């Protein structure tokens, strides 16, 4: 079997294959996270929402924090790939613009998401 090496023309395709792969792996992580999150939400939403109730459960709870941090990272890997596809196929964006959009979205989700996890888990929030 000839061991041919890829040239520069194939590099974009290989990068796209990798993005697809990581989007699918994060999808598997998210499937589990979402199942758990749905169950938690159905429970938590009973009797209305209040900061005291929520923070009472989450503050200082580092296991909770770890779980939701993983959730956020998986979202940041998963969501932008799908949005980039929509941008290319439905919104008429070119390859570069779609990649820029997807990177921006990934950073937005990562930063706001981890900030949110920190916000509810960091102990001793002022009332």
């Amino acid at each position: 079997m000839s061991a041919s090496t890829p040239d520069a023309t194939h590099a974009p395709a290989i990068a796209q294959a990798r993005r697809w792969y990581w989007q699918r792996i994060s999808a598997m992580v998210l499937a589990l996270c979402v199942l758990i999150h749905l169950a938690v939400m159905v429970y938590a939403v009973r009797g209305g929402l209040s900061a005291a109730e929520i923070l009472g459960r989450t503050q200082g709870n580092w296991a909770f924090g770890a779980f939701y941090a993983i959730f956020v990272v998986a979202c940041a890997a998963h969501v932008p790939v799908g949005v980039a596809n929509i941008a290319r196929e439905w919104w008429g964006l070119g390859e570069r613009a779609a990649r820029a959009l997807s990177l921006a979205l990934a950073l937005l989700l990562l930063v706001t998401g981890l900030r949110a996890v920190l916000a509810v888990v960091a102990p001793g929030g002022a009332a």
Partner: protein
Amino acid sequence: MKRRSDSRARSHPAYWAFLMHRLSGLGLALFLPLHFWALGQALHGAAALDRFLKLADLPLFKAAEWGLVVLLALHMMGGVRLLLIEFGNVRDLRKNWIAGAVGFAAAAGIAFALSLWT
């Protein structure tokens, strides 16, 4: 210039599953930054979070929450079907799983609705 298919070519279950998956994903993608921002309000203290949560009592807000839960359940189950098609070794496009996905989303929606309104 080429001619394109119209909606008649899209009237089959696997296509509806694709559309449902893409639209639910888009809805969730637009919602997520808002969700993270709202929770981040807790950084400013419990009172700040409570101010936002006051909105959560509004009927429109609850309806939107319910809608998002349904979108999430739909997107997840549609995604599980896709993962099984792409990584498993299935014989066909599992249209019965589309029904299962919708069923699961309906169940999740009902469970959430009961939590919200009783």
